[in-house]
């Protein structure tokens, strides 16, 4: 028989571990949780349509993840979605004319924001807004445009912006 002290300590450890696990489940794997933050700064961008972008989605440059989407709000004055991105402090020197676009990982995968660097010498400051923001490509819009053959005749304001790779 072990001493009562050992039993008490192990039981305490076990119960503590159990409650820590419950706490982890409640805060870390549901959407009402709190994420652990590291050294970083914020950028915002406003989009006409963000498609299926969600908080926590990656922000990448040339395919390398440099940050996360922290917050998505709808602005009632602009009628636009305001996306707040948290970029790691390692990537401080992003030119302040870089543009942001929403891409899809794979055909049906999750969406992420891609930043394409511009030519400016001045980097973005904390809290600054990305001026050039290209919307998500909504598959249904593309299909309906193709079906009704109006994409070619009306390249108007409602056309979702094509991927920047196609523009260049």
């Amino acid at each position, binding site marked *: 028989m072990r001493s009562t002290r050992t*039993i*008490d300590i*192990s*039981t305490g*450890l*076990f*119960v503590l*571990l*159990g*409650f820590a*696990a*419950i706490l*982890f*489940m*409640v805060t*870390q*794997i*549901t*959407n*009402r*949780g709190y994420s652990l933050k590291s050294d970083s700064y914020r950028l915002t961008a406003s989009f006409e349509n963000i498609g299926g972008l*969600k*908080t*926590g*989605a*990656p922000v990448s440059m040339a395919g390398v*993840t440099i940050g*996360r989407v922290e917050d998505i709000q709808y602005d009632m004055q602009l009628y636009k979605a305001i996306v707040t991105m948290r970029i790691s402090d390692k990537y401080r020197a992003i030119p302040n004319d870089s543009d942001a676009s929403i891409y899809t*990982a*794979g*055909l*049906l*995968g*999750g969406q992420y924001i891609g930043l394409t660097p511009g030519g400016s010498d001045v980097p973005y400051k904390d809290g600054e807004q990305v001026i050039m923001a290209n919307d998500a490509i909504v598959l249904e819009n593309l299909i309906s445009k193709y079906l009704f053959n109006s994409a070619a005749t009306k390249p108007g304001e409602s056309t979702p912006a094509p991927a920047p790779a196609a523009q260049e």
Partner: protein
Amino acid sequence: MITILREFVQSFLTFLERVGLLVRFALRLAAILPTGMLRPRPIIEQVYNTGAMSLVIIMTCGLFIGMVLGLQGYDLLTRFGSEEYLGTATAISLLRELGPVVTALLFAGRAGTALAAELGLMRATDQIAAMEIMAVDPMRRVVLPRFLGGVIAMPLLVSIFIVVALFGAQLVGVEFFGVDSGSYWSQMRSAVELSDIREGLVKGLVFGVACSLIAVYEGYNAVPTAEGVGRATTRTVVISAVVTLILDYILTALML
């Protein structure tokens, strides 16, 4: 033909009798529950015996279940090009089904058998009869703390199992196969609801009650021979497993 039929009826009646006895046993436990709580010392010892001692096996199995989920999930999801959903798939299957059920099966094998063998041996060596002679209620002194220890330990074991398994799946999916770690956790976060966690914990609690009850019942009512103790241990595992899976379906249907 008639003898077969008679035997069938006989075994069915035996089954009904056992169910009735189990219910009576459970009611007796419930009746002494409030006064039994006044002595926390033996309950803590049993939480140690059933919970803390099962920790290593629970964590090892959780890790490997998680790794298998990561492997299988990744293989399946890459066919649709949507491996970002690995976190969602793993978390939901673990929270709702695999966590509580596998933990209950392991619990029956690790803690349930220990309980049944201990109580059966106490019965076989007349320790329980000795207590009755000394006017100590063995139900209150021996059975209830063991039952409560299992009930308390089970939901905690389920949570630990699930969290360890999530990291096991992350190990395979993110570290080995290169799924984006942000996608893994954020897709999980956006899909998992608090009700999923509640479902897992409620299942854990119910399975804990069922498995502990079966273990202490089989041990306490074991035939007082070496063979009887062995049979009680076997029955504990078999009945616990079957009851867990049946209850799992009922609970899922109720909470979905």
